[in-house]
């Protein structure tokens, strides 16, 4: 007889998730598009596409190209804007009892504050995730995310206007991610998400031109996983707040890897394009993995990596 494995995880600020498997922003639409393939309630949470104060058009095409074990995207945060999100997307998500985390994007502090204010008190939002890390827009998030001072400023400003659990999503395109992480934690973040995509470029050598209209894009998928795992490992040793790890997860061992280096939860991104139901499948496989390995509570795995002396 075995007792069921506990999959619940605590992400701080009173937020308990059913399980540690969420879907990553920009790879799961507004969640509703996935209903034909997955019961949204089975997921630890859904992080929706980045929302800005006003609708955004995004970058011209081509916006995508596949790379070895990865893909490069330069979507440029095309989104419906916060008003339409609240009116059209949030009510059906709430009906479905999904745990919804809103990824927030802006050009400057005022934009992040504006979205946070608009969402304040709106039922159905479990947490905010500040995207201080999108590499595909000329201004805003990405530049903010490279400076500890700017990260602290935006985080603190949103903290002042929002009672929601506050996550800050970090870019790995910096020399010291630990410094950025510490700045966000000190400024009042409840948890940190990492990593966003790595800047990359692909050239069409026949035409001698960049493949993407934006010239560069963000690299995601298994190609980035070892770098993402290393980033989570470093940050986990430096800050005390919970971490949400991501980058190239395609199977249950990848999830366990992120948990062992110190993530309390994970997000599945690019893999959902190939298999829309993958995140829910991985929830079941994580429970099975724990059972097979004599782990009663998934929280036992968090930070349980053993470093040989």
């Amino acid at each position: 007889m075995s007792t069921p494995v506990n999959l619940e995880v605590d992400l701080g600020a009173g937020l308990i998730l059913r399980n540690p498997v969420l879907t990553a922003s920009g790879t799961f639409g507004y969640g509703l598009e996935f209903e034909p393939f997955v019961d949204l309630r089975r997921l630890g949470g859904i992080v929706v596409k980045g929302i800005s104060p006003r609708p955004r058009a995004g970058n011209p095409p081509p916006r995508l190209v596949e790379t070895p074990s990865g893909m490069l995207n330069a979507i440029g945060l095309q989104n419906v804007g916060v008003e339409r999100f609240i009116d059209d997307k949030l009510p059906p998500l709430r009906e479905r009892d999904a745990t919804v985390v809103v990824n927030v994007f802006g050009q400057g502090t005022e934009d992040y504050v504006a979205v946070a204010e608009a969402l304040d008190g709106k039922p159905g939002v479990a947490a905010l995730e500040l995207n201080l890390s999108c590499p595909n827009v000329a201004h805003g998030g990405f530049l903010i995310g490279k400076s500890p001072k700017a990260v602290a400023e935006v985080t603190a400003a949103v903290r002042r206007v929002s009672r929601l659990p506050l996550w800050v999503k970090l870019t790995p395109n910096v020399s010291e991610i630990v410094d950025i992480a510490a700045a966000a934690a000190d400024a009042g973040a409840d948890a940190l998400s990492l990593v966003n995509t790595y800047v990359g470029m692909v050239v069409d050598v026949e035409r001698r031109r960049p493949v993407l209209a934006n010239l560069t894009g963000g690299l995601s998928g298994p190609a980035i996983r070892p770098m993402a795992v290393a980033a989570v490992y470093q940050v986990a040793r430096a800050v005390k707040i919970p971490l949400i790890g991501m980058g190239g997860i395609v199977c249950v061992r990848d999830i366990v890897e992120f948990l062992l280096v110190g993530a309390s939860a994970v997000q599945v991104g690019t893999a959902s394009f190939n298999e829309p139901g993958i995140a829910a499948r991985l929830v079941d496989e994580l429970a099975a993995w724990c059972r097979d390995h004599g782990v009663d509570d998934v929280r036992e795995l968090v930070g349980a990596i053993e470093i040989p002396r």
Partner: protein
Amino acid sequence: MPENITAQVEEQQALGGDYHLLRIAGPTIAAAARAGQFVMLGLGDPGEMLIRRPFSIARVIESAEGPVAFEILYKVVGRGTLAFSRLRPGAAMSVLGPLGRGFWLPAPEAPCRPILVAGGIGIAPFPLFVQQLGPAARHAEVIYGGRSAVDLPLAQWFEPRCGTLTLATEDGTEGLRGRITAPLEQALDRADEQEGSCVFACGPHPMLAAVARLCLERQIPCQLALEETMACGFGVCLGCVVPRRHPTDAFDRFARVCTEGPVFDAREIVL
């Protein structure tokens, strides 16, 4: 609603050049498919192929009990299509479909003479189109161009099924020498005097732009099946966009080819 399944390869046929016809079991997809719609095809293991590839549904296979399978016509151009060309009957593929908005056929009360224009692998959606046109296909005109004779793999199939078939190759090895725009222009000018025509086109971007221009100038209805690089195929990655001619707000400036297309009215988009 699209179906996401693991399906079996039933048949793989090499058509010469780099062209192949792949038959995949899938009764639900076959029954629901409209010409111009597509499927996302993958190998299942993301280690082997991280994002699936889009392919038009070329033909539906019926048994006595109804639709049982569908076919895709594809050209080997890279890693994914090379891997597909090595699949043998019994192999498993991951399939999502049918996806997108297909061609809308002329309504019975407003008939028009269909002119199908294909460039190279752009022929792929048209066998199903002809199947779905039914008896009206006998009035249809097909204008089919490619680089060379080997690039017209389905020419024989259309010959007995359509009113007229005009072939064109850039090197003159089959049919007229040159691009399809010259025979299309002639057909459109002929159509001006007769009953109204409507154009359905699929092919490389510059060809579609030329077809759209010829039709818009003459105010002839024109539907275009577009290609853009796709990661998801069902509207969530926002990777596959085309500029809209009359956007209503910023979010609307680009249309998603996978869900709002791949077939567009030439008046809707900017090529």
